[in-house]
């Protein structure tokens, strides 16, 4: 469902991600753990392009979200002038591609320098596979550490805003009246709020809610778009301890229903209990991945052993 290919992310000189690849299957619950600064939040934010990866590609359901990364497509490399130069110098095709990849010889900023064919090849791949990021994000819910409920909107408006703004037009085109559409989305939002037991807060404003309530509503707000995958960025880290449980319960419920979930988390109990797969990140790469049993009961990477020693 989600295919992350060789993601690099630099913030200026700071290298946060250094080649991360992973595939997330439908219905899979993946927990990402690791010390702070290991790049786990950045990886999550690269998945829905809140951060644009410096290199690498993100694919969702066979659609490309990022720009084309030439290094991931041998046919693009072979269309480049750099490749032709190496070929002309008598290098074999495989060696030339490997050398270009290893030594970062394609000058992306000046892709004009790589010639027409190269650009045409890039454009072809882009045009065939690319999907507008706003459309893609409608299928990827995200929950933030700081909740980020819209402060200027009531709880109900928080939940209905995105569906109304992205889906109402189509429904009105199909012959529904504005009022019907609004009632439809309000009804759906109320059902979702009911599910987390907060329907009585529908008209309240975020500033009047507790952290736990805010985060549960933030989850529901993302669910209102009926996403195929949910991204959680340390959803319980900013909560008072007594509120962590209520948020985790909502997440466990989602996992049980078969939602595809990727959770950056410090809740090892949650990861162990709910996740199908755990990724341990260290210094910008996935240092170890496996089932919760493998990760927690039989960690191999020394840094993982050290990390678990600290948090468990």
């Amino acid at each position: 469902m989600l295919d992350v290919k060789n993601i690099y992310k630099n913030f200026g000189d700071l290298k946060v991600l250094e080649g991360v690849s992973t595939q997330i299957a439908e219905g899979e619950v993946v927990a990402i753990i690791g010390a702070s600064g290991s790049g786990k939040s950045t990886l999550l934010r690269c998945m829905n392009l809140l951060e644009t990866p410096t290199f690498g590609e993100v694919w969702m359901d066979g659609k490309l979200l990022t720009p084309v990364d030439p290094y991931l497509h041998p046919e693009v490399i072979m269309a480049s002038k750099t490749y032709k130069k190496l070929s002309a110098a008598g290098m074999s095709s495989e060696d030339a591609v490997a050398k270009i990849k290893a030594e970062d010889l394609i000058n992306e900023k000046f892709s004009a320098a790589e010639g027409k064919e190269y650009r045409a090849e890039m454009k072809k791949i882009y045009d065939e596979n690319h999907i507008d990021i706003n459309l893609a994000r409608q299928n990827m819910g995200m929950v933030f550490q700081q909740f980020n409920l819209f402060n200027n909107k009531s709880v109900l408006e928080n939940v209905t805003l995105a569906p109304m703004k992205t889906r109402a037009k189509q429904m009105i085109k199909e012959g529904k009246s504005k009022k019907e559409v609004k009632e439809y989305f309000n009804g759906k939002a109320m059902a979702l709020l009911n599910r987390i037991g907060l329907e009585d807060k529908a008209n309240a404003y975020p500033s009047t809610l507790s952290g736990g309530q805010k985060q549960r509503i933030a989850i529901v707000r993302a669910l209102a778009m009926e996403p195929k995958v949910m991204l959680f960025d340390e959803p319980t880290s900013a909560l008072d301890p007594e509120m962590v449980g209520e948020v985790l319960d909502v997440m466990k419920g989602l996992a049980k229903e078969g939602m595809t979930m990727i959770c950056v988390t410090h809740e090892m109990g949650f990861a162990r209990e709910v996740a199908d797969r755990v990724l341990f990140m260290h210094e910008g790469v996935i240092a170890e991945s496996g089932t919760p049993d493998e990760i927690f009961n039989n960690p191999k990477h020394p840094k993982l052993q050290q990390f678990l020693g600290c948090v468990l």
Partner: protein
Amino acid sequence: MYLITMFEDMGKIFVKYWDLFLIKGVTATILLSLMTVFFGTVIGALLALVKISKIKPLKWLVNAIVEIIRGTPMLLQLYISTFLIPVIIPAMNELENKKILCISFTLILNSAAYVSEIIRSGIEAVDKGQTEAARSLGLNGTTTMIQVVLPQAVKNILPALGNEFITVIKETSLASTFYVGELMTQYHVIVGKTHNSLPILMIIGIIYFVLNFVLSKLLGVFERRMKAHA
């Protein structure tokens, strides 16, 4: 003793010329300020949008203009524009009120420069997480701006905009250099008749003070109300 005479003179002059002070002067000052703030805000908002946009050349241009305006004295700008604009647009010379046009233009541009900074910082003060949350739901940049960022930015912007209004009221006095009829111009008019400067200046000072004091109190009430609704 001198003070008492001065107060007496103030009374006499005010009674004689109250219409020049209150009707002509205050009206012109308020009209000029209102117009400046209104158009300054509209243009300032546009400049602010350019500033937060990603169109680099336009951004540099706007930043340069804003910095030049903020970095040179208003009086100088008024002088330059009254000489320069008619040179650039010769048709201006045939207009009867070209002076007031040039001055309004300068006041508006000056105000727009400050307002653009107010609006830009107001927008940038809205938590980034708000934008990220909206974008993560699949809303585009424009919808995010209109639905989420701007309504919150307005709360940061309005109080500062009120202060800008007060500043503008005071700055319009510089336009008196060109006799455009606002409150400070009336000083020149009346002093020509009475040859007694200080009482007139005191009266004008009191009028400016009352105007701005009332305005700032009104803004205070408005601000408190807005906070209560937040």
